[in-house]
């Protein structure tokens, strides 16, 4: 079975589409081009950098959620 497609262009198009669908009418085509550059240099670059370090399933975020009870 092929793995998840994390090709950079594909990933960029996917994320840019989210922005286009949500905010395209507001910002227009010209600005969408400029926004695409930001999506690439921030969202895509971050994603790639994060994937470079392997994580084990047991590497949990800290702090963990603590159940809340007002009276202690």
């Amino acid at each position, binding site marked *: 079975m092929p793995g998840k497609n994390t090709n950079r262009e594909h990933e960029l198009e996917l*994320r*840019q589409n*989210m*922005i286009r669908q*949500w*905010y395209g009418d*507001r*910002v227009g085509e010209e*600005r969408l081009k*400029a*926004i695409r550059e*930001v*999506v690439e*240099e*921030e*969202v895509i*670059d*971050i*994603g790639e*950098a*994060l*994937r*470079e*370090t392997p*994580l084990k399933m047991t*590497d*949990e*975020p*800290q702090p963990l959620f603590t159940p809340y009870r007002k009276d202690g």
Partner: protein
Amino acid sequence: MAHNPVFMPVRRLAELVRSRQVSPVELAQLFLRRLEMLGPRYNAVVTLTRERAMEQARRAEREIAEGKYRGPLHGIPYGLKDLFATRGIKTTWGAERYKDQTPDYDATLVRRLEEAGAVLVAKLAMVELAGGFKYIQPNNAFTGPGLNPWDISTQSGGSSSGSGAAVAAGLVPFAIGTETWGSIVMPANNCGIAGLRPTYGRVSRHGAMPLSWTLDKPGPMCQTADDCGLVLNAIAGHDPQDPATTERIYEYDGEDWGEHTPGRRFRLAVPKDAAAEADDTVKSRFDKALKTLSGFCEIDEVPFPDYPYGAVTLGVFMAESASIWEEFIDNGYGETLTAPESRNYVYPRMAMLATDYLKAVRLRTIIAREADRVMAPYDAVVAPTCMIPAPPVAPKPKQSLKERSKEIVGALGNLAGLPAISVPMGFSDGMLPVGIQFMGRAYDDNAVIAVARAYQSVTDWHTRHPADVMG
């Protein structure tokens, strides 16, 4: 007034107030005058809080006369970054959208300073929304860019721009700033003052504009490292209204020096290539500072593990800020930002996935543990605060993620919530200050203050002030 309080460290000023040689009312009047006269020169002030200041100053004067002295901040004026809620006083966050926002309560930090007897004289300018949407231009929507008292063609730095400038120009004895990533230590670097970023959770964020829940940290900006300790002592502590605040008790050990007694040798770690990206001025001043430090410190060069520090920090920031500001963004308020370029930075964070964020916070846990292991044998890590002196007031050149990642100490320190203090370590040929930072293990706020205090006891950079603002 027989004494000139302008540029006087809080510790000395406090002694004069306690012994009634200086009147809190006269102090408040003096600093209100300076803020009114000189504040506009640096675009440093949003609101003068005259009425509240005079009421607090009169109360302080009365209490001290009656022998009810509250401690070293009693009767001392201060300025507050305009992102902390103040009851009945506009709290603008530096942005058009919030220009009339008037909270009906005080932020916890404001309340604690009031309890310590400090006198709020001004809400100070900040970069619009704390630069959360990439401040390519260092603007505040109402006052313009923060200008540096050492040279008004350069930036005071952000996002605590007014806090940095006001302390450097002697408009307030101390100020409060906040840091998500660089917003205290960078203006401290640019303006030649002491700026302390406390351990995350030391100081309550309740009532402060949120930018990133797990990165935001309020802290003091002062004339000296010692003053930062005095102010931290008043504002630190658990707050039920901020679940991130620690139960650990903070007590500033400045008077007895705790374990950091004079004559004790500190152990410092310099990250490998700490100044590699610095310009020649910063490199040479840092080398000189290391020589000075070697007089009372053991200094080792230490390699830090190779992690994508910048990407992880930015990943946390982007995802948290996307959630915090979702309604603002969806309602189109991002289009009201003053810098047109910034408006394009509003939307991309909405394309972060939950898995991106969780990967970043999982990596953060590993990085924090690794950093603590590396730092455990040392009192502090030392590095230049910034790689350049204050830049000109102009749109910032784009900085790639790779470039941002090279400044390990800033990215790691904020990501892992570690305390750091910046103090001046010299000047450029053009007389712009440059800073050195000391960063410690979590909750070692006193250790970083102690090293900085020891450094300031053998240097005089912090006693120099811009020529045209002398009191």
